[in-house]
Every structure is written in structure tokens, then in C-alpha cells.
């Protein structure tokens, strides 16, 4: 970078203006989160009267009290962990060996298999045939169905295959001399050398599982199987037009707004905890998946 002291007055002005604009965009990004947190800690009355702007008004934990006694909240929280951990392990179990095989030159029909996988990025059957297929497979309302049916996608396989291909052959030769087979070469040579790429894919899997909503809503009917996002959606929809709740909240210190906000805060917290650890990977990761044959 350039030295500040060498900057002309015009350049200094420009740099300061840019910093202010970036600062404003950052505040605009952050503000909704602060606002939601403030609403979640405010009294229902203050939130409805439009008094909450940046700090909690009539600070109270009533909204949190309302959700933590709801067993459904904890069930769906647990389910989200099951889907995230189970789904990510399932994905890696498919993707790592699959990508390794596809990266090997001696694999017969390699071009065909690559095309077979890449084609699904260009064309997919759409919502209805996918849904009917899940029904035919008896995977409706099944936790295992959710974990299995979204385990693989072409993009992640291609990303890892590209990374494997970029590893020089010489790395595995020593292992081959010792009589290692493909499983051993993959596990002892390729996996350790591909940590950044595997970390990136793990990150993509975790994020999409944690946030997964649409198919969980469509495929799962039982309340004891739904993930947090579906529960959150039910609650938001329910609170905004539930007469029973309206009666309830006149006597309580919480409202539909504060309860919604409290659930949002609860489901963001794990993301915020993990975020600093994953940040160093996704900047690299997004570029790994970039332009390459």
C-alpha cells in the first residue's frame, strides 16, 4: 500500500470520504442486528409503541422466558444440530472419495463422469419431480432423508477435484513405494494436503445445513423433526395472526415482536460464535471454486 505522507491533499480527502462511506455501509449492515437485539430485550409494550431504536426500552427477559419454556424450541434446536453435524459428515463421506476418484487420470470414463456430475449444475428437474421422487423413496418426513438427499452437490465435488488435481504427483510416490493403496494415499497424502479446501467445503456444508429451510418445511411434517429455521418461521407466522396470543400478551410484558426477535437472537448466536474461526477459510474458499476447467 501507499504511504499516507506521500498523499496529496486531494488524495487524503478522497481516502477519508471512502472511509466514511464504507463506515456507513458497515453501520447499515450491523444496525438491523443491534435493533433486533434491542427489541428482544425490550418490553412488549415499548416495542409495539415504536420506542425501541437502538437500546432496549424497559429492559426485560420476558420474551426469552416465553421461548425457553417452549419444549418445541429445544427440540428444533437439537434437530438443527443433528442435521448440521450428520449432514456435514455425510457430505464429506461422499465428496472426498468421489472427488479423489475423479481427479485420477487412470479412471476410465473420467470425462463422462465429470460431465455426468457437472450437467446437474446446468439442468435440474425442479421442485416437483424432486419432491415426488422423495415420496417414492419413502423419504418424506424422515430425518435421514433430509441428511442424505442434500449430501452432495456438483459444485463442492468439482471444487475439491480441482484442488486434488493441483497436488503434484511426487507427493504420493513415496507412499506408493511403500505399497499404499488408493484409500491409504487419499487418507495419508491427499487429505492432509487439502486441509484448506476440505475446510472450505465443510464450512459451506455447515452453513447450508444450519440455514436450511425450504425443503425441511416441505418434506417434514412431524413437529419433533423440524429444524430451528422451520420453528422460527412457524412462530413468526403464528404470532402475527394468533388471537390467543393477542389476548395472552395484553397481560404479559412481551409481544409478537419481542418474541420473534428473541428467537432470531437465539438462532444467530451459534453463527456468531463460529464465525471468527471460519472467516479465514471462506475468503480462500470462494476463490478456490473460481474459474477453472
Amino acid at each position, binding site marked *: 500500500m501507499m504511504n499516507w505522507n*506521500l498523499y496529496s491533499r486531494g488524495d487524503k480527502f478522497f481516502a477519508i470520504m471512502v472511509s466514511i462511506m464504507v463506515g456507513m455501509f*458497515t453501520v447499515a449492515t450491523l444496525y438491523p442486528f443491534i435493533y*433486533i437485539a434491542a427489541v428482544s430485550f425490550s418490553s412488549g409494550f415499548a416495542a409495539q409503541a415504536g420506542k425501541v431504536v437502538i437500546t432496549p426500552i424497559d429492559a426485560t427477559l420476558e420474551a426469552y422466558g416465553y421461548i425457553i419454556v417452549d419444549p418445541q424450541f429445544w427440540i428444533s434446536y437439537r434437530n438443527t444440530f443433528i442435521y448440521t453435524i450428520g449432514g456435514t459428515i455425510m457430505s464429506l463421506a*461422499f465428496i472426498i472419495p*468421489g472427488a479423489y*476418484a475423479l481427479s485420477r487420470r487412470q479412471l476410465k470414463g473420467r470425462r463422462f463422469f465429470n460431465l455426468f456430475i457437472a450437467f446437474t449444475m446446468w439442468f435440474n428437474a*425442479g421442485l416437483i419431480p424432486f419432491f*415426488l421422487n422423495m415420496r417414492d423413496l419413502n423419504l418424506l418426513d424422515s430425518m435421514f432423508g433430509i441428511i442424505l438427499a442434500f449430501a452432495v452437490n456438483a459444485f463442492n465435488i468439482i471444487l475439491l477435484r480441482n484442488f486434488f488435481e493441483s497436488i503434484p504427483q511426487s507427493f504420493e510416490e513415496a507412499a506408493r513405494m511403500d505399497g499404499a493403496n488408493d484409500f491409504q494415499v487419499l487418507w495419508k497424502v491427499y487429505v492432509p494436503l487439502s486441509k484448506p479446501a476440505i475446510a472450505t467445503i465443510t464450512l459451506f456444508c455447515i452453513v447450508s445445513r444450519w440455514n436450511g429451510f425450504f425443503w425441511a418445511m416441505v418434506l417434514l411434517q412431524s413437529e419433533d423433526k423440524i429444524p430451528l429455521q422451520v420453528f422460527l418461521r412457524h412462530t413468526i407466522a403464528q404470532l402475527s395472526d394468533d388471537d390467543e396470543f393477542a389476548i395472552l400478551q395484553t397481560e404479559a410484558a412481551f409481544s409478537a415482536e419481542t418474541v420473534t426477535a428473541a428467537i432470531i437472537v437465539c438462532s444467530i448466536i451459534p453463527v456468531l460464535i463460529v464465525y471468527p474461526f471460519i472467516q479465514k477459510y471462506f475468503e480462500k474458499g470462494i476463490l478456490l471454486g473460481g474459474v477453472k476447467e
Partner: protein
Amino acid sequence: MVDRNSDVGGIPIEEVVVEAKEALRDRAKTYTPDTSWTRMVDHFKREWQLYAMLAPTIIWFVVFLYKPMYGLQIAFKDYSIFRGVSGSPWIGFEHFEVLFNNDQFIRAFWNTIKISALNLIFGFPAPIILALMFNEILNARFKKTTQTIVYLPHFISSVIIAGIVITAFAPTGGIVNIILGWFGIDSIYFLTRPEWFRPIFVGTGIWQEAGFGSIVFLAAIAGVNPSLYESAVVDGANRWQMMWKITLPSILPTILIMLIIRIGNIMEVSFELVILLYQPATYETADVVNTWIYRQGLQSGQYDLAAAAGLFNALVAFVLVMTANTLSRRYSRTSLW
């Protein structure tokens, strides 16, 4: 020449020759290095582990992605759950005729295009501008902190994003209406107003994705040759000029590729967020093809008609993606895949 009268170890030469010929013929039967069949067998014996590793993935693709493609034939059938995909009778293009005469579907199609166009016009330049601005920030700590924050919304689920939007735009107590109130503007129930849906939707998209989208452009900027800036400084150029004359032209290939990808994805409006934000009052501007398919197919059970709409959508998307890839190959000499 062979002397016919000589013998080999007491055996007449003719017999030896016959025997040798037979032996050769036998060997030719078992030892056939050039036929592809034995080579295949050898290959699979040696490399079976690779195929064992690949098999689960291939089977997964067949079961979860290719089998539904077979199921797409219901777009041309009078599908009933009891007869199943193969048992239902063919009816040709009837569903497509219904589809193209269905005002709601046509509306959903154009809404998809319009929302994508707005995304392209406003959403596409945002990460580029942001990346250019990040590049001008000298204070490393400030840069790192702001980047960390603006990447964050990308990792938040659309349910939460929708929850935030619903809370912030609420008619009473929502922050947007509070601010409007300061200027003496009456409260607006934004989410029931068709004219507000697209601005809110596209704005939300920019808020969520502009930061994360800037990573690609920042990487491109990092690859610009520093000597270009050095000679520009010698020539007395200021930062503003360098941004326009060096940085921007240098990252133009990346911009072009990202633009082509965006055009290829025009049919892919993030319908999850639409489902979470729209309501019957705003269908007029908010309903996109995938939300229409969701209502017709998964909610009303008209699977065959909805599958036809899905097939139409997929074909349009396929043509767009293929065109985009061809263009990218031409301009960047690398295809996207």
C-alpha cells in the same frame, strides 16, 4: 531353411513344429494383450478401489438428481399419484398450453425477469464499488473490521433475514416507520403494498450479499501489478485517477465473468426469501416462477402442471447458462466449469 530330415532330441522336426504352432495358438487364446476385454479386467483388478470410491457419489446422483429428470415426463402426462410416473397416460403439450394461457404464470415469469433485472442493475455494481472502496482504505485494522462485519449477513438464513425485514418494516413499532414518523410521514404497511415489494426485496439482497460478493473483486484487485501504480505515481496521478485508469480496467475480466454468471442465473431468484416475505396482497409484483410452482404443485397438488412450469423454467435457465458459458469461454479463454 529347415532340414526336414533332422530331428530335435529324437523327435522328428515336423512334430516339434506342429507342437510349437499349437502352443502358440493356445497362448494366443489365453494371452491376448491387445484385446480390450482383458485389459479392462486387468485395469479393474488393479484400480477397483477408485471405482469403489466413485460409486456412492454416482449412485447418489442417479437416485437424487437423474431419477427426478426421468420423473419430469409427468409434464407431458395426466399424472395421478395412484398410477405413478410411468403408468399415467400421455397427453402431449396440454399442460404447456394451459400454462401459457395462465395469467398468473405469465405474471410470475415476468416478475422473475423484472426482479432479476433490478438485481442486475442495482445488486451487481454494489460489490464492485465496495471492493474498490475497500482498496482505498489505508488503515488495515479499520479495513479488516469493516470487512468482517459486511461479510456476516451472507451466513444468516433467509428465515432470519425475513424476520428482520418483517420486524423492521412493521407498521407499528418498526424502525422504518419510526424514522418516517420523525419526518411527519404517516406509517406505511410496507409488506402489504405491491409497489414496495421489489425495492425491499432487492435492497435486502444488496444488504445481505454486497459484502460477501466483494471478496472476488478484492482478490482480483490484489492481483494487479504494483508497478502500474508506481509509474502512475511518478506521472503524478492521484488515487481517484488510479482507481479509474488502473484498478478498474485491471479487474474488468473478473467483472465480465461475474456479469456473465449473473446473466446465466436470471431465472434463479432466491425464491426462499420470496416465500417468506410475500403475501396474497403482494403476489402481483412478488410472485416468481418457483413460488408459483410451489403453490400449484406442493400446496394445491397439481403436480403435472407445476412440473411443466418447472421444465419450462429449467430449459430457459439451461439456455441462459450455456450461452453464458460460451461467452465466458470466448472472452476469458476459460470456461466457468
